[in-house]
């Protein structure tokens, strides 16, 4: 019952300026403010971050594995969206 009344928050860290925030784990806190402070104490003990996002776990809506066919398969047949699809002569190939 250590955290019987507390909410679960997901923690995202930006490890350096210029990089994306990345999910690192979760923790229990009373509200966003406190979650931010605990995230600082729990997930940045070795200066792992320069910016923190906290999100209530309940607020995350995740795609389901069952959806993956309808979500992701359709893009499998669109290789023309990828740079590697286009063969260019060597002279101009660093494009």
């Amino acid at each position: 019952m250590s955290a019987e009344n507390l909410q679960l928050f997901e923690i995202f860290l930006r490890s350096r300026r210029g990089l994306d925030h990345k999910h690192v784990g979760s923790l229990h806190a009373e509200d966003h403010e406190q979650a931010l402070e605990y995230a600082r104490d729990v997930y940045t003990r070795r200066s792992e971050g320069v910016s923190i996002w906290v999100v209530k776990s309940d607020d995350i809506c995740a795609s389901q594995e069952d959806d993956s066919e309808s979500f992701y398969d359709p893009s499998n047949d669109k290789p023309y969206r990828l740079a590697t699809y286009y063969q260019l002569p060597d002279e101009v190939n660093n494009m």
Partner: protein
Amino acid sequence: MVSDMNEETKQAVLNYTIRLGDDAVVIGHRIAEWCRNAPFLEEDLALSNVALDFIGRARMFYGYAEELADDGRKEDYFAYMRDHREYQNLLIMELPRGDFAYTMVRQLLVDVFNLYYLEQLISSTDETLAAIAGKAIKETRYHLRRSHEWVLRLGLGTDESKIRAQKAVDDIWGFTHELFDLDELEQQMADAGIGVDNRSLQQDWSAKVKSILEEASLIVPEDSWKVKGGREGYHTEYLGQMLNEMQCVHRANPGLEW
């Protein structure tokens, strides 16, 4: 620079620095007692961070004392080989950890004091003390953010938490007057622009503490009792017990590397 100081100033700065080291190590030790005993795991980690800040601060002050003393006494000599009669920390630092309310209320009172104290120490003419203050004040701002929020939660939480918080305020209040005393050494250091005139901090401290306590719907006690003596080594019984424990391994085999 240490090399530019005359012998008398050097001694005075040394004694002044040791006191600041004593304050930091004693309260750091107290907060560290929470590690594995906190109300939930996140708080174990947070309190340990605060304790680590204070132990680090003690090491910086004692490290500077080592340099000033220049007689072979090292950082650990100051922490481990001095008796409680020689320790010169403020009494509020040595009070036991008590319950969570006691710890957080003491922390609030100390954090607000440290905030104003360090803001002054940053402009010390002594570059080392100023540099330590520069690092410490960042930590203190975070400590205060935490202790402020916790006192609100406790004061405005349940009936029980309010009672416990109020009792802590009442039981600790008499130890806060000492924060604003100035003895001869401190006067000398303040005059020289090396130390801080603690008396000048009292008004800001009172205003800030009062506003936070009121925000937490806690009653600011009357100034009906005052306990003093830490800077002269006149301590509560708690410090002797604390140091007995803290120093026992080091002293059982003195002079060794650990």
